[in-house]
């Protein structure tokens, strides 16, 4: 109505009202938290030794689990999107299960797999590998909950892209591995990137599975969310300050993911 140049949007006016309510539901709590930040103590709080240790541990483990997600998730997404084998549908549903599972359930499941008394834990311990209470356990827990995010977004990208480029590449004489490396992966790179970013963000926020499976020890398994949970017991200001840091990191990460789709077209020298 007001701007003549805009095309017909087809959105009824009242939708905006409900949309605003939905937006508020997400933004209002963040704003409320922002209002509670004790700015006078903010810098000392977030630069305390335990805070920095937790942040650094969170970033390291999230990076590691993102790499693990890519390494394991790309083949998984390929198999789900392009393969055809019995039980494919069931496999897809099962792989996506951690998306809807409460993380604490994931933690319990991991415990019974990699724990000392677990399915693989006994053999691992026999081989001298102890996972429980180690940073490895944190990475495992994060990978467990974050992997579906990568698989979902990559599988979607693969399905949208179709396999016509791959067929052409094959008739031009490219081996399947070459096709994957030079055609498939570059084509779905935006989907892969956003999947990796989502995985990273999910890893960063992982709490329940880590708490259940990995424990909580400064510098080893106490990631930022666990540190926030613990600080809350005694120092609400510290918990709020650290929460804000986590929100900021998440915003930066998600914000970065919006960019690569453009830069891949221009950059990436052949």
């Amino acid at each position: 109505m007001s701007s003549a140049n805009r095309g017909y949007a087809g959105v009824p006016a009242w939708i905006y009202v409900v949309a605003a309510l939905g937006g508020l539901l997400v933004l209002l709590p963040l704003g409320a938290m922002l209002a509670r930040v004790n700015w006078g103590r903010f810098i000392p709080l977030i630069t305390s030794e335990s805070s920095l240790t937790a942040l650094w541990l969170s970033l390291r483990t999230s990076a590691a689990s993102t790499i693990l997600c890519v390494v394991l998730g790309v083949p998984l997404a390929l198999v789900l999107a392009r393969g055809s084998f019995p039980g494919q549908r069931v496999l897809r549903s099962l792989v996506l299960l951690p998306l809807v599972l409460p993380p604490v359930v994931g933690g319990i499941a991991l415990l019974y797999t990699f724990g000392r008394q677990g399915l693989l834990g006994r053999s691992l311990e026999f081989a001298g590998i102890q996972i429980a209470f180690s940073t490895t356990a944190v990475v495992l827990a994060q990978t467990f909950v974050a992997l579906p995010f990568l698989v979902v977004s990559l599988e979607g990208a693969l399905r949208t892209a179709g396999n016509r480029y791959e067929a052409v590449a094959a008739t031009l004489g490219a081996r399947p591995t070459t096709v994957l490396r030079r055609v498939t992966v570059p084509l779905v790179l935006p989907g892969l990137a956003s999947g990796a970013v989502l995985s990273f963000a999910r890893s960063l926020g992982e709490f329940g599975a880590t708490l259940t499976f990995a424990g909580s020890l400064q510098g080893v398994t106490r990631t930022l969310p666990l540190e926030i949970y613990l600080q809350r017991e005694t120092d609400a200001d510290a918990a709020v300050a650290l929460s804000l840091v986590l929100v900021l990191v998440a915003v930066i990460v998600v914000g970065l993911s919006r960019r690569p789709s453009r830069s891949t077209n221009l950059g990436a020298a052949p």
Partner: protein
Amino acid sequence: MSFRFSATVQSRGFEVSLALGPAETVAVLGANGAGKSTLLAVIAGLLRPDSGQADVDGKVLFDLGEAAAGGIWTAPHRRGTALLAQEPLLFPHLSALDNVAFGPRSAGLSRPASREAARHWLREVDAESLASRRPARLSGGQAQRIAIARSLAANPEILLLDEPMAALDVHAAPLLRRLLKRVLAGRRAIIVTHDVLDALMLADRIIVLDNGGIAEEGPTKEVLRKPRSPFAARLAGLNLLTGTLSGDGITSGDGLHLAGHLEDGGQAGDDGIAVFPPSAVSVFPTAAHGSPRNTLPVTITDLEPHGDQVRVRAGGLSADITPAASADLGLAPGMTVYFVIKATAVSIYPA
């Protein structure tokens, strides 16, 4: 024959055998769903037939027995059957040059050597100036030229072209057709098309597919001059009537008689085919008019513009008349009129 092919795909009712000479280009024509794309997919190795054999210059592409088990199946990338589709399908993340260099690079050439080869093929398609462009910044015609260069650069044993001009606008198509004529000379290629011009200009031979099988095949000129299938007749722009040969013409199944010029010494009583151009057909409101011979009563099914003429369709037959004549006669679908055909314009030959 250096390329031999026969395959069955039961689910698509496809059963085709064909062969190609060392430097022969064959045009495959047919209606939608006739099996043209299936043919290319099976040759390229993108679709596995139920049974069949194919080899090119002694190299086996596949050899699958009636029993599904075992057999030889060469992967697409080892076949040397570059596929050029309707859409260029240039890899969007690579420059034009690197798209063309993709084949040589996959064949194991170093990056500089593969780019050198790519430059050569870009020159061949007059697109050297586009080398550094991304596909997104190419027009449809330019992109298809790069795609042709890319296919040729892969040095294929057989070039497979799947309606390469279909997605281009009317200005880009003639240019590309001339280019293809040049680069296909002396090359083994199969071109799937629905455009008779492609067949005329590019192919030595025509294969008409219908319902998953070969309906007709032969040298291009021969097929266009003396079509034996309704599809080929339509391609050649001719009316086609089948029936039984008689002394001076042909009698169709429903008793219509056409007199005409009998070719190739057909015997009376043999199955025969009569073809005549729509321009040789006149339309009259009554039977009394004109020559007593070659008058067919028909019901008009459609009227449509055809160049500066009006094409009057009546079932499988058509006549081209002037718009003025059409207006004078007050033609409309559903009307019963009489098609009168000059006997001298009717070619009749054994089926």
